[in-house]
């Protein structure tokens, strides 16, 4: 990453080893991503109707236009950003649009969703550009830590006032729009966690009573916030029945806590609390209990003579794909029915692109996560490092929770596959995550030593108080 490249634009003679900007690499990768997506779009039409769909050029132009605008923003305001982040996001979003367009051709799956998804993608890219242009330094975010957490809590609580959709109270509906505010809360919570933990690292890491020689229990004062977050996760689960979100929040917090303090004791506490919560939920909450049963016996509804469940249909779809897949437009993932375009969108990818295509998608996610961590590792300021680790972990955890869920690795929980799944809130949130990662990586790779943060960067006062949120 730090090696000088021959293709680097070298305007002034560099005094030191010049870090290349590699914007040309980014641009060519974006072009490739757009072409791959257009090819997918054309292939759907060829497979279904024997003709390239008339919207192919428009679709490609739209995607290319959005990607170019994003690229220009990065080129002007974050010239040293990691050149892989944006192309991966464009490619995943493009493939997601192709999959939704393909599922739109199945009349049994309800009205068309691809046009709305394209609009949401455009909104996401718009917000991406706003973040890249407006957020000159990611450390500014630490100032708004408590605003973030308050907003996150409000967003999490808001859906309670709205009617449940398919058993989960995670939607806010107004004026014909429906939003999943929990998606936005993820980023806000990651910002808060990063700020709170970077400000209270010492207290969390070095205080407390030792038991059993090695394990050092944290003091009650610092344990408070941890318990509060745990309670919040359980609350989200109990009130909104959103198993996936509560799992994500809690895992995110434990991972960031570990990164901040380096203490395995926190992991032990976290695992203990998580298993307690999971056990209680599995026993007491019938909705969760049935998910656990489905996980252990995915074909139990078939054995009971009730026909295959969605999870069974999802497994059938993956199995049908095999190694090479049936080809875009030639699978039967519509049998999954409800949520085939959102939670189960990966089953369509698995059936029609096969193990090969699915592996490629998973590697793209892995690469995205890897670049996030890498950006964080090259930073000096603890807030930025924690934030990068948190955002990368959000992506990895989401992929694990939903991909593992639809493939019967873990109990199925509703969650959107980043960039692929239908859902405006999700795609917008993921674009914001990528925007913040771009900012962080730009900071990490920027050559100017005066701009580079020292080891003891002043932490904004707002995050210093260390009080637990109530």
């Amino acid at each position, binding site marked *: 990453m730090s090696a000088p490249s021959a293709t680097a634009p070298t305007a002034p003679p560099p005094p030191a080893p010049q870090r290349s900007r590699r914007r040309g690499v980014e641009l060519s990768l974006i072009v490739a991503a757009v072409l791959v997506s257009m090819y997918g779009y054309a292939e759907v039409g060829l497979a279904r109707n024997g003709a390239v769909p008339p919207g192919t050029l428009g679709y490609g132009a739209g995607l290319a236009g959005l990607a170019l605008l994003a690229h220009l923003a990065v080129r002007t305001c974050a010239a040293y950003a990691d050149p892989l982040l944006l192309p991966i996001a464009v490619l995943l979003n493009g493939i997601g649009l192709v999959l939704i367009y393909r599922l739109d051709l199945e009349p049994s799956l309800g009205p068309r969703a691809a046009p709305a998804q394209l609009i949401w993608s455009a909104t996401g890219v718009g917000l991406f550009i706003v973040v890249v242009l407006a957020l000159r330094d990611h450390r500014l975010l630490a100032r708004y830590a408590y605003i973030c957490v308050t907003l996150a809590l409000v967003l999490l609580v808001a859906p309670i006032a709205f009617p449940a959709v398919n058993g989960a109270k995670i939607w806010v509906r107004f004026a014909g729009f429906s939003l999943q505010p929990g998606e936005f809360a993820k980023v806000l919570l990651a910002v808060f966690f990063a700020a709170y933990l970077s400000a209270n690292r010492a207290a969390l890491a070095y205080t407390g009573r030792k038991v059993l020689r090695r394990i050092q229990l944290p003091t009650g004062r610092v344990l408070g916030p941890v318990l509060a977050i745990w309670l919040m996760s359980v609350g989200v689960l109990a009130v909104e029945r959103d198993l996936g979100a509560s799992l994500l929040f809690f895992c995110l917090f434990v991972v960031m806590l570990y990164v901040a303090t380096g203490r395995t004791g926190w992991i032990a506490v976290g695992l203990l609390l998580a298993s307690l919560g999971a056990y209680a939920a599995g026993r007491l909450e019938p909705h969760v209990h049935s998910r656990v049963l489905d996980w252990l016996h995915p074909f139990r509804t078939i054995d009971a003579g009730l026909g295959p469940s969605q999870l069974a249909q999802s497994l059938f779809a993956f*199995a049908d794909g095999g190694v090479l897949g049936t080809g875009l437009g030639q699978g039967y993932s519509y049998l999954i029915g409800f949520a085939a375009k959102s939670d189960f969108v990966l089953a369509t990818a698995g059936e029609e692109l096969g193990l090969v295509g699915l592996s490629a998608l*998973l590697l793209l996610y892995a690469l995205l996560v890897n670049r996030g961590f890498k950006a964080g590792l090259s930073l000096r300021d603890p807030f930025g490092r924690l934030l990068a*680790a948190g955002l990368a972990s959000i992506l990895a955890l989401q992929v694990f929770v939903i991909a593992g869920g639809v493939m019967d690795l873990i109990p199925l929980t509703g969650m959107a596959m980043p960039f692929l799944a239908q859902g405006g809130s999700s795609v917008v949130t993921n674009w914001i995550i990528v925007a913040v990662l771009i900012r962080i990586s730009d900071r990490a790779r920027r050559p100017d030593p005066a701009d580079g943060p020292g080891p003891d960067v002043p932490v904004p006062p707002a995050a210093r108080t260390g009080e637990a949120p109530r």
Partner: protein
Amino acid sequence: MNRCMRHAAVFCALLLAAVLVNTARVQVVQAGKFTGNPANRRIAIERYHQPRGNILVGGQRVTGSRATLGQLRYERTYLEGPLYAPVTGFASQTYGATLLEGTEDALLSGTSATLDTTPLWHELTRARQRGGDVDTTIDPAAQRAAYAGLAGRRGAVAALDPATGRILALVSSPSYDPSLLSGSGPGVTAAWTRLNADRDQPMLDRAIRQTYPPGSTFKVVTAAAALQQGLVRDVMAPTNSPDPYRLEGTLVDLTNESDGCRDASVYDAFRISCNTVFAKLGTDLGPHGVVDQAQAFGFNDTRLRIPASVAKSTVDTGMGPDQVGLSSIGQFDTTATPLQMAMVAAAVGNGGKLMRPYLVDRVTNHNGITVSSGHPSLLHQAVSARTARQLQTLMEAVVTDGTGGNAAIPGAVVGGKTGTAQHGLANTGTPYAWFISYARPENVDHATVAVAVVVEDAEAQRADISGGGNAAPIAKAVMQAVLSSPVPTGEFSSPSGN
């Protein structure tokens, strides 16, 4: 903090690796189990996703496909369902497929690899393969003649081209419309229940799946054995047989329907169908003599496929002398399918060569390229050419001067044998009327058509005449239809425009 971040990164990598490994489990390791799950509709959906290939008779398709709004998109239709049901079988979304629809399913539905002339290209493009068409050997004129001849009575007709083994007609009556069973709705279930409960068993393909006691038509086999093994050298010589004939080791006396059987020659005994003479011949031949000859004509063969499997025609291999006597006149537990008896007539008409019967002329893929075709092959040399000529003399006398006069066709040489098979408790059931025959144009040296006809509820009395009366006219109509068809004989020109 660096160390912990790396740990977190490794943790995330492990999560994604677990997903990747699990993907391989679901998509490769356990894929077969999931795909084979009966609740997985994919196989059924894929199968009916495109129009099925067609079955052709005389170059014209007798099947079709109809698009529905259901999940299983295309349903089978039949243009003349009842007429061709014993050939096509049915292709049901609910009850599977039978006969040609069943045996040729991979070709018709497009899953067979043999349809693919450019397999590597299709492996690359992963295009869905269209179904192929199955061209049958059936002669539509013969099929119609047989179906019209039975006229809804219970019975069956099988007709062959003796020289090649091409099956020219397969009719079972009463028949049913297979399109009633094509779909998957409640109407299909109701039709299925009704057809299965019908006492006339319309879904039974009597021509190849039902065995009947062959009665006197089996005397062709007995005569063949006696001539082939040298027991009888001159068909005109008296046989020194009594009338009535007491079956060996029993107190049962066998009698005849006709007079003049005492000490009759084989020629006369065959012409007027003497039970006594042939029972004695069979007893003299012994169990092996009769069974070996029957097996040379195709009896006791469980592996015959046309390509649908044909029910086994039976001659008991462990008979005592009295049972051999009864078997030799087509009684005891000797049974035969109509196709089997047509094969007997065909072998005689074809100079002793029994050709393997087949129903599929050729299979073409969606582009019209022939991917496989049926070829004539010898099944057995049933009798020598000399014996065959002697048998032809006997069978032709039946038509010119015996019980089978109703089958005579002007301008053609016809050989036949009537039969009446008694059945039921103490032989009280209405007898089955049989007629087997072959025919050739006068200027051709081998038979060009062989037919077997069974009419189950023959109206006439229990007499040999019922075979000649009920069954022979049907055989005649079928033979005439084949003789006047331009294909495959070519000797007779069809009525032309001028």
